[in-house]
């Protein structure tokens, strides 16, 4: 009954309305008005821990840009909303930013699910989203610029390092049970087997969000590590669960020299919440560390401390991602001479700006960045001591080569291809990406 009704009413309304088209996000901007920049990060709820800092860094970047005279001669105006770590609310707020506030670009989201829930909104209203967090890939939307790392820009180099320097032969892949860890582990498992690691030497373990009692699992890891082969833990454990995990490692006396843990979601921000003395030597793989010793980084950190009025506040990888993303957007807008989404989206590709580690980040046709991969060991000062760095920049593989359905896909938003999921075998634009075109 519901269905029939829906069909009928919809038909009726369509008749009444003629064709209904979504208004473009930045409709008819008048030259004097300020340019709105949406900031879509949770300021309350479970994700506030990570996301609040990103809100602050955006405010800083926007303030700096305004100090430089704004953009296209217009002031930038941040529009901050609180999606409160509530996924449907993310979608609602995204819609508000685009259709009510007419934000020219939105910087936001942290978790995959928050990105997934806003994605349809951005595609429908043709908005621009800058997503600053390392994620699982398997996505390439025309309306999203992924300034965080794809799995191959973080996980693989870390594993290589441990195999080489660390002489690790036995692997524990421990993660929180959601899509990012599962994809990463999927990729790593395939990669390790490729490198001749026996299945018996790989232990995969998933735990729920906010898991806090790690006794048994850490003991399990310990046991797994005592089979006579050098063992390492690759941790994709998320947010809240990390502190209790590392504290338990400390308690059970697992030192980095016995079983090193390399983490992909533990940065300076997380370390700030722990006593790092027992953790010295455990590793993390990122594309940026606060300890990077370059003039750009020093300047960035100083600016941050001034802005936040607290010299103790740390910087981390997603902050750099926003830094890069914002500068790229500014460049692209200047290049396009307008904030009209289509023009900016096209202008973005090929834009390259300095990152904070004395290199350049370029926006590739797949809307992902080129990044250096740094491996850092936790020091007793709560900072990472960089022990390895990929010689060149790594290009993102947005589509996993280890998943049958996606191994032949590439994303290329340059005209004429303009496809988020182009199948190089069949040379057709996969349905997944087709809709984006």
């Amino acid at each position, binding site marked *: 009954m*519901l*269905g029939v*009704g*829906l*069909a009928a*009413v*919809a038909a*009726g*309304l*369509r008749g*009444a*309305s003629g064709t*209904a088209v*979504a208004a473009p996000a930045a*409709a*008819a901007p008048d030259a004097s008005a300020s340019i709105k920049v949406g900031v879509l990060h949770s*300021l*309350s709820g479970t994700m506030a821990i990570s996301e609040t800092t990103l809100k602050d860094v955006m405010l800083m970047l926007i303030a700096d840009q305004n100090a430089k005279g704004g953009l296209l001669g217009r002031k930038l105006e941040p529009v*901050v*909303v*609180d999606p409160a770590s*509530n*996924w*449907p*609310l993310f*979608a*609602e*707020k995204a*819609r*508000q930013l685009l*259709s*009510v506030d007419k934000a020219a670009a939105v910087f936001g989201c942290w*978790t*995959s*699910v928050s990105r*997934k*829930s806003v*994605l*349809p*909104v951005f595609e*429908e209203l043709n908005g621009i989203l800058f997503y600053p967090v390392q994620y699982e890939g*398997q*996505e390439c939307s025309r309306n999203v610029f992924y300034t965080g790392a794809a799995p191959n820009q973080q996980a693989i180099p870390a594993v290589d390092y441990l195999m080489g320097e660390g002489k690790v032969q036995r692997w524990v892949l421990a993660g929180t*049970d*959601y*899509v990012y860890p*599962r*994809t990463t582990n999927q990729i790593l498992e395939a990669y390790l087997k490729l490198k001749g690691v026996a299945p018996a030497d790989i232990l995969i373990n998933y735990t*729920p*969000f906010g898991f806090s009692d790690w006794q048994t699992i850490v003991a399990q890891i310990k046991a797994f590590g005592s089979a006579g082969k050098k063992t390492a833990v690759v941790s994709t454990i998320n947010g809240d669960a990390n502190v209790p995990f590392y504290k338990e490692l400390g308690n059970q006396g697992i030192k980095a020299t016995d079983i090193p843990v390399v983490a992909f979601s533990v940065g300076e921000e997380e370390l700030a919440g722990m006593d790092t003395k027992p953790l010295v030597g455990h590793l993390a793989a990122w594309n940026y560390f606060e300890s990077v010793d370059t003039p750009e980084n020093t300047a960035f950190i100083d600016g941050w401390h001034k802005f936040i009025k607290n010299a103790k506040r740390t910087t981390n990888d997603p902050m750099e991602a926003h830094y890069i993303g914002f500068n790229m957007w500014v460049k692209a807008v200047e290049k396009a001479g307008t904030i009209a989404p289509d023009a900016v989206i096209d202008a973005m590709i090929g834009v390259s700006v300095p990152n904070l580690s004395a290199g350049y980040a370029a926006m590739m046709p797949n809307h992902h960045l080129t990044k250096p991969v740094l491996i850092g060991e936790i020091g007793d000062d709560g900072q990472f001591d960089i022990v390895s760095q990929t010689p060149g920049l790594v290009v993102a593989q947005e589509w996993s080569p280890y*998943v049958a*359905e*996606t191994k032949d896909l590439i994303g290329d938003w340059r005209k004429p291809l303009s496809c988020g*999921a182009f199948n190089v075998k069949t040379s057709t634009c*996969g*349905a*997944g*990406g*087709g*809709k984006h075109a």
Partner: protein
Amino acid sequence: MRRSLLTPALVLGVAIVLAGLNLATPAAGALHVSSYVVSLAGKYLCFAILALALDLVWGYVGILSLGHAAFFALGGYAMGMYLMREIGARGVYANARLPDFMVFLGWHDLPWYWLGFDHFAVAAVMAVLVPAALAFAFGWFAFRARVGGVYLAIITQALTYALMLAFFRNDMGFGGNNGMTDFKDVLGLPLHADATRAALLVITALVLGAVYLAARALVGSRFGKVLVAVRDAEARTRFLGYRPEAYKLVVWVISAAIAGIGGALYVMQVGIINPSEFAPANSIEAVIWVAVGGRGTLWGAVLGAVLVNFAKTWFTAALPEYWLFGLGALFIGVTLLLPKGLAGLFARGPVRRTAPRGAIAEEGAR
């Protein structure tokens, strides 16, 4: 009878006006209602349906459920599964047989419990049936064992919490933490078209109206009188020969089914359903809508749901840093100053006596 029609008529009227303005006026026009407002209104009305369901059990039989969002979410999942199937080969992996997340998990064929969900009718039925069935199973034991008051509240909370954890698991086959999203269309109509969205709003309003009238008829019947009797003096109804557990069970199941309907409409308009809908906090918020509006009056529940959610929308944008203070204060203020909610301001008749102090222990032990 006219008064009973007032609320649904009002809701429907507003819905139609919004939908009309959204479609009929030019985007730049002064009268134009953005699709944002339309989808927002649709969301509010879905919550209003949930609030009605909750008010039936809490307001009229005095069963406080801290897990009603679970029934809402189950309805949502049922409909979500259908919408997922509707995507067909347009998913990221262009796989016509399996939803994206199953492809991603490396599954090869559809789990049995997904069969049939490519038909809207099946999903619609399930959206009502599944919550109802769960409610029946749960209530059958709970009410027979005379679990009541605070105890029931807490185990309903445990129920929704357990469901949340369960749905978080990717192996469950419901999309794990990400749940289901990126829906394309319903019954062949594109979900992202303004016309569909407007239509959904109107239909939600119609459903809400229907549910409202049904609920009204229910509480107006002798059955309804027994419900209130159970709320006021359960022991007395027993000595009169009634079986409160049976009455509770019936209304509990009905309420769950209504919540399910709300969820089904919700997922169509919000475009995502995932385990966080099971979060105990959501259920508590729903209770608060009813409390704010005024438990024991159906229109109060509707009013509360719309008002609180509007406040939330407005707060989170206007003062993102401090809105929780506002919301918290609102809850405290209402419970302290308006024990009968906003509806209490208009209520006639004597204010219900609050039980004497010390009744707590009994309430707890009942």
